[in-house]
């Protein structure tokens, strides 16, 4: 996504000094950070540039500029919230770039514990850079909020002093990226992640009351959160910051966003006319739509020889009819990132053509990954063990195989239908049943032997000696226990609680029915006969 890429590149540059080219090879001669590095670093931009960079965010940008206020204006803490990829972080950084105010940015996603968060902020304020000469250590060690408050006061005092002495020299040119004003802004990004930290509620409480504790009017605090402010309400109560809401983009905004930085706007806008409406019904998030649109656009442009032309009505209709059959399966794959690399696009296309050629639901008949035969049998055995009640095992896996002789046609009464429905509901709620390891191995043995012999010759199994194992089966046995543990790692089997009477571990199968069907189909195993249906 070109817009996000450009803002990501500029965002990265705020963490290092961007006014000087960074020389990675010589850390000894690295540039000592100064107060000037606390700004965005690049040249300041006008309001119109900010507004045109972020289509659909006009009112939020103007609100934010008003709330931050003119130069040296004290401000109450702000909280900016909205769902993911709505542009919160980039808008805040670009607005502060436009206003050329010095700020300190830290994200609670990269600073995942209080100590790292506090030390990152203090490093930036003390203008300390970690390099080999100081052993990559922070300026001060700080892991408690009480130390942080004292050190922050000291650091802010230093920075504000240097800002004041710097601003005494009058600067005619306001757009050279130097910091303006005597206020410092602290930006805390991804504040909602703090809830999952150890003692997270205390840290959140501390952050919200930081402004009142410090009592410094030259400090402005901006919190960016992915969750609305009401999730932070707790027993202790706090003075909540001023909220600013970033709603999800509407369809018009999405259209403008996707049209930016496109080489051929007319062609892309014809493409968006076709594609935007159906995909917006599923999701309106930019990051999810952009991956699908980029691959679809490539397919859309296939019949065209020249990508620079602007299409007329006739061509639009032609392109639409070319793209139309691809839309429906693409909608169902919208969140799936293709495992085929871009070079292998032809292989993927062939597969897709084959897949939507056949109209039935089970399009991809094969498993996406490779499994050994014994692992597949184990998977099927686990699936059966979870679905079927244990009491039916004997009759299910007897010599005749399957349960086709158990059906008794009887007219079902209303009461039994109701009971059946309730039982079905309960079964859905309870999920797959648990089974001990011995049952799994027993079922595995049965079906593995079924698979080995052909179907028609079921009489042969009566002759099979139940106690004597073949040499093959013996070798298979030790591998099976290894396979069980690798299936557990792959989360096809999970360990559920142990039975209090027996004390052995019970397993549960997490395999969905389609996966089991796919595995069974690849082994030519009649799964349907062994499945118990109420």
């Amino acid at each position: 996504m070109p817009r996000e890429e450009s803002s990501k590149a500029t965002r990265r540059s705020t963490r290092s000094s961007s006014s000087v080219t960074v020389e990675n090879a010589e850390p000894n001669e690295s540039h000592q950070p100064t107060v000037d590095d606390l700004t965005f670093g690049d040249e300041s931009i006008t309001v119109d540039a900010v507004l045109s960079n972020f289509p659909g965010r006009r009112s939020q940008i103007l609100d934010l500029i008003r709330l931050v206020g003119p130069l040296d204006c004290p401000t109450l803490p702000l909280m900016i919230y909205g769902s993911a990829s709505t542009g919160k972080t980039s808008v805040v950084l670009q607005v502060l770039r436009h206003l050329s105010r010095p700020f300190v940015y830290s994200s609670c996603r990269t600073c995942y514990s209080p100590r790292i968060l506090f030390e990152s902020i203090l490093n930036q304020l003390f203008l300390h850079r970690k390099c080999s000469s100081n052993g990559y250590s922070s300026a001060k060690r700080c892991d408690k909020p009480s130390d942080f408050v004292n050190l922050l006061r000291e650091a802010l005092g230093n920075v504000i002093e240097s800002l004041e002495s710097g601003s005494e020299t009058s600067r005619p040119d306001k757009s050279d990226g130097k910091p303006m004003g005597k206020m410092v802004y602290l930006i805390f990004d991804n504040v909602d992640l703090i809830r999952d930290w150890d003692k997270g509620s205390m840290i959140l409480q501390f952050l919200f009351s930081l402004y009142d504790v410090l009592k410094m009017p030259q400090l402005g605090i901006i919190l960016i959160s992915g969750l609305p402010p009401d999730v932070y309400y707790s027993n202790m109560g706090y003075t909540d910051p001023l909220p600013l809401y970033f709603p999800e983009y509407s369809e018009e905004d999405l259209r403008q966003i996707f049209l930016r930085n496109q080489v051929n706007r007319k062609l892309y806008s014809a493409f968006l006319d076709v594609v935007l409406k159906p995909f917006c019904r599923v999701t309106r998030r930019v990051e999810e739509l952009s991956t699908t649109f980029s691959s679809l656009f490539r397919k859309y442009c296939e019949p065209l020889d020249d990508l620079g032309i602007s299409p007329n009505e006739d061509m639009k209709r032609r392109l639409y009819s070319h793209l139309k059959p691809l839309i429906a399966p693409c909608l169902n794959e919208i969140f799936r990132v293709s495992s085929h690399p871009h070079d292998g696009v032809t292989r993927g296309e062939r597969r897709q053509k084959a897949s939507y050629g056949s109209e039935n639901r089970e399009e991809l008949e094969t498993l996406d990954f490779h499994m050994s035969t014994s692992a597949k049998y184990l998977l099927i055995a686990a699936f059966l063990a979870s679905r079927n009640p244990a009491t039916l095992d004997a009759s299910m896996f007897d010599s005749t195989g399957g349960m086709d002789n158990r059906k008794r046609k009887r007219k079902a009464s209303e009461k039994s239908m109701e009971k059946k429905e309730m039982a079905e509901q309960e079964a859905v709620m309870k999920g797959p049943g648990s089974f001990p390891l011995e049952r799994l191995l027993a079922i595995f043995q049965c079906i593995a032997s079924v698979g080995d012999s052909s179907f028609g010759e079921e009489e042969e199994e009566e002759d099979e000696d139940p106690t004597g194992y073949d040499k093959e089966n013996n070798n298979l046995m030790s591998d099976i226990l290894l396979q069980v543990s690798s299936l557990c790692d792959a989360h096809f089997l999970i360990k559920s609680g142990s039975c209090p009477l027996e004390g052995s571990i019970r397993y549960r199968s997490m395999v969905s029915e389609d996966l089991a069907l796919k595995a069974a189909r690849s082994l030519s195993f009649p799964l349907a006969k062994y499945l118990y249906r109420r």
Partner: protein
Amino acid sequence: MGKEIIPAAEKSLNLIRGRLCDPSYVFRPLSASSDSNYSKLKFIVSTSITEGCNNSILLLGPRGSGKAAVLDLVAGDLLEEFPDSVSLIRLNGLLHSDDNCAFKEIARQLCMEHHLLFSKMASLDENSQFIVAMLRECGLAHKTIIFVLDEFDMFAQGKQRLLYSLLDAMQSVTSQAVVIGISSRLDADQLLEKRVRSRFSHRKILFLPPSREEFDGLLEHLLSLPADSSFPNGYVSRFNEKIKNITSDTRFKDILRTLFNANSTVNSLLKFIFRAVSLMNLESGLLSLENFKAALSSMQRQPKLEAVRDCSILELYLLVCMRRLEVKEQSAYNIISVMKEYKTIHDSFQTSDYYAQNVCLRAFEHLRERQVICYTENRGQSQTGEYRPMKLLISASELHQGMRSHACCPAILLKLLDH
């Protein structure tokens, strides 16, 4: 944005916002009268200073009612009146509830006051001995130490060792100390242990929300510009005139009444005025009633409605399915049962929005991220994946309202929700 901005407008904006962010300025008029909390507190503390006795007080009141601000005003006045015989130690329950931290912080502040060297390596016992020794010395020198304990209820958690040692030292040693606790829990003194409570003097000052007349006076105090020479001549009078017009307007009184129905502390009024002042028209430099109206509507947010309005159509379908399952009195449902309901709706109504399982799973994740649905806490069974029971976090009326105000909600969904 390209029009001329009057420099006086920016200056007045800075001035007013500076006032709003400074609690001692805000609460000064409220402390003017003789029976206010300010005078009570000042009387208690100054008598204990002049008579050389120990005392302990609790300041209680909801958040944002100005307890810390009034205390700051009193402390400022006392430090002026008795410059050499008062020293102030501040602790905050959020930061210093751990005993180690608390003693260290007290020792550090005492050292800073009396120009002593503070060692960071001192242990808890050393610090507490130091504090007791300082208390004795200050008592002999007739110097009062005022301990301010913010978020007092946080100190009352755990063993209450700090409280006990402070109050015990005040009783046994020849000391002159005043302990002032600030808390927003009105029952903060009930949280104290028996031995601590017996040493506590049970004086409480309650901070109640101000009356309407006090609020009007406060508004004028905050919003009127001073008539000094730094502003252009006519501007100040025009500005104050406009303010008077607005505050006497009945619509403004309605706005204020709506605001106070929700939250009648001074803090919410400050936030409201802050928002309104930030919207000031910088070209004319005057406030208007529209600013206040816009500020009120931005304070009355409805987060669940916003969350529903942000949903895509597939997510709305899933919410409607969950609601229908609730209506059918299925108290517990998980993803599999919701998908079944989704399928039955598709089969009976032939909707065009039927998507595969993985798409719906991702839509569930989006809904969970927005806190519209969540997993129920399940102690008994350990379910994982798609079998975990879920529940809706919004009520039926909120869902209804959200869908009706949604940009492109299909009509069939509203019909499905209704019956």
